[in-house]
């Protein structure tokens, strides 16, 4: 009568019932969850998130220790060894100027991780703040912020980024600023929509009855309930930022060769896609792995922060 899956559920339930009745005498008083117990719970329940966190840590470590890990320099050309395939001397091969690709990947991780994470955090902070303020206070402030967001969104993002880069000039910090200024608007719109929804809920009304001021309301009720959305947005925006940086670099607006970033490497390898696919493939896989790691970690964080998942 029962399918295999269903039989398993019934059996597991019987087992857990026995365990429960054995432990029912223990005091049931709970404890408040601290940050550490929460992380421990995530480690227990979501192995993938833990694995992802380790991968991200390893990438960061490799980026920091790049000079120790590789004998080559990321900028020294070796024109005798152009486009050589992976070998024991050059694990991932060399590029069109004979530079070791592994070395460039390690150094590129510094730029790419930073351009992935820092401007995304900046744009999320800016967007969330403006979105919440817009939703909570309404009126002319709401109009002003939302029109600004509309204008930002109306421009093609690449064009906007180019304009801002032209005005600010080259440099890593300016790349960060540019990416943050391009991406804040969508975050602000989404957070505002959610704020308006939350504003109508009874628990926000209850807080008003108690006399909670609007500023406190934002941090106690609105932002915590926006958190799952923000985490998803973060995992979506990190790869977007890495790729936008590469496009900017490609257009000669971001970092300039010979400095290395993953996006730049993918782009410059494109011309040799048939002759030497490892030029684009290696940085491409690096981007993919780190983006996936951020995604899984984000999912894990979202679940562990969700009270409905707590037993």
């Amino acid at each position: 009568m029962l399918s295999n899956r269903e039989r398993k559920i019934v059996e597991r339930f019987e087992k857990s019932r026995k365990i429960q009745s054995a432990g029912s005498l223990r005091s049931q008083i709970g404890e408040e969850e601290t940050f550490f117990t929460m992380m421990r719970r995530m480690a227990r329940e979501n192995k993938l998130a833990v694995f992802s966190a380790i991968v991200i840590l390893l990438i960061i470590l490799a980026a920091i220790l790049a000079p120790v890990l590789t004998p080559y320099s990321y900028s020294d050309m070796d024109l005798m060894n152009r486009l050589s395939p992976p070998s024991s001397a050059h694990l991932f091969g060399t590029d069109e100027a004979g530079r070791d690709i592994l070395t460039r990947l390690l150094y590129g991780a510094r730029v790419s991780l930073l351009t992935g994470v820092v401007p995304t955090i900046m744009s999320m902070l800016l967007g969330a703040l403006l979105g919440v303020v817009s939703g909570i206070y309404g009126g002319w402030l709401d109009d002003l912020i939302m029109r600004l967001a509309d204008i930002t969104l109306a421009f093609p993002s690449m064009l906007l980024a180019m304009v801002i880069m032209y005005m600010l000039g080259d440099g890593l910090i300016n790349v960060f600023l540019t990416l943050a200024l391009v991406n804040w608007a969508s975050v602000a719109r989404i957070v505002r929509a959610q704020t308006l929804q939350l504003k109508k809920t009874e628990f926000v009304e209850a807080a008003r009855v108690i006399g909670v001021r609007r500023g406190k309301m934002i941090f106690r009720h609105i932002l915590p309930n926006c958190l799952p959305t923000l985490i998803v947005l973060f995992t979506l925006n990190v790869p977007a930022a890495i790729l936008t940086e590469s496009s900017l670099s490609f257009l000669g607006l971001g970092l300039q060769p010979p400095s290395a970033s993953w996006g730049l490497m993918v782009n410059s390898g494109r011309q040799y896609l048939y002759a030497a696919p490892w030029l684009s493939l290696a940085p491409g896989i690096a981007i993919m792995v780190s983006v996936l790691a951020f995604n899984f970690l984000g999912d894990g964080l979202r679940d562990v922060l969700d009270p409905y998942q707590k037993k």
Partner: protein
Amino acid sequence: MADNTLEIRNLNTSFFTQHGEVRAVNDVSLDVRRAQITGIVGESGCGKSMTARSVMGLVRYPGRIVSGRIRLDGKEITGLSKKEMCSLRGNELSMIFQEPMSSLNPVMKVGKQVEETLRIHQHVTKEEAARRTEEIFREVGISDARSRMACYPHQLSGGLRQRVMIAMAMICKPKLLIADEPTTALDVTVEAQILSLMKRLCEGGTSILLISHNLGVIAQVCDYVYVMYAGRIVEQADTCTLFDHPVHPYTRALLGAASSLRSGAARLETIPGGVPNLLHLPSGCSFSPRCEKCARQCQNEVPQMLPVSGEGHLARCYFANVPEE
């Protein structure tokens, strides 16, 4: 058996969740007699809605009917394919829900929605469908039927929306109408109107299965009542017998709670404890942890439905026939 429109025998519906098996409907047998209103009463989560959904074939994953037989007008419907169930629903078998707004398409005129139901199941022309829709609108007491047919759901009041839902359910002249808390979302004066409409439909020959948590609703319109608790039927009797001589301790407690509101007593009657978790049902009678009469056998074995003096009166209690001291 021609005098029963619906027969359910030993129905079990379970949800296989990650926490274990939730036995939403537990060995339920019930009959809906022709041209009568049969009621199921119980608290939220007692399985009364799931019984209805099982009949309609609307149990969603991870739930399914594990065992049991459902017969509509003598015809077995448990083994039917999805397609066959679809042609049955809305045609021979209809259901109305608590919240009429969420059951209606907000961007379609209500007249069109009712016509569509008819045209799905019966080959009629557009004109014929419109004519019959207008007719059924009048029948369910919608004044000014023709202009109401051109309204969108949000333009109608809650009571009118529920009448539209009833019209939609009745347009194909179903053998059985299941009403799941049809008046809970309505105002007091409108509730009374809808209930008298249901009584009229029943007098017209429709068999109705009425599900409600409100003993007042049940007492007003039902001919025969089933009381459910934690997935099981605990008592069944015709309405007057049930309200006059309840024997199951749960039925007594429920009736006591409802009537103590009117007694003028300072403290209202309640039932100690809470409804059991369907994941961890007590091993014996599910009401035993809250029952003052609870004996050892109540804790060990689930009692069967025992006949009580009085025709068609059954109760799932070992003490059903022990006279009150």
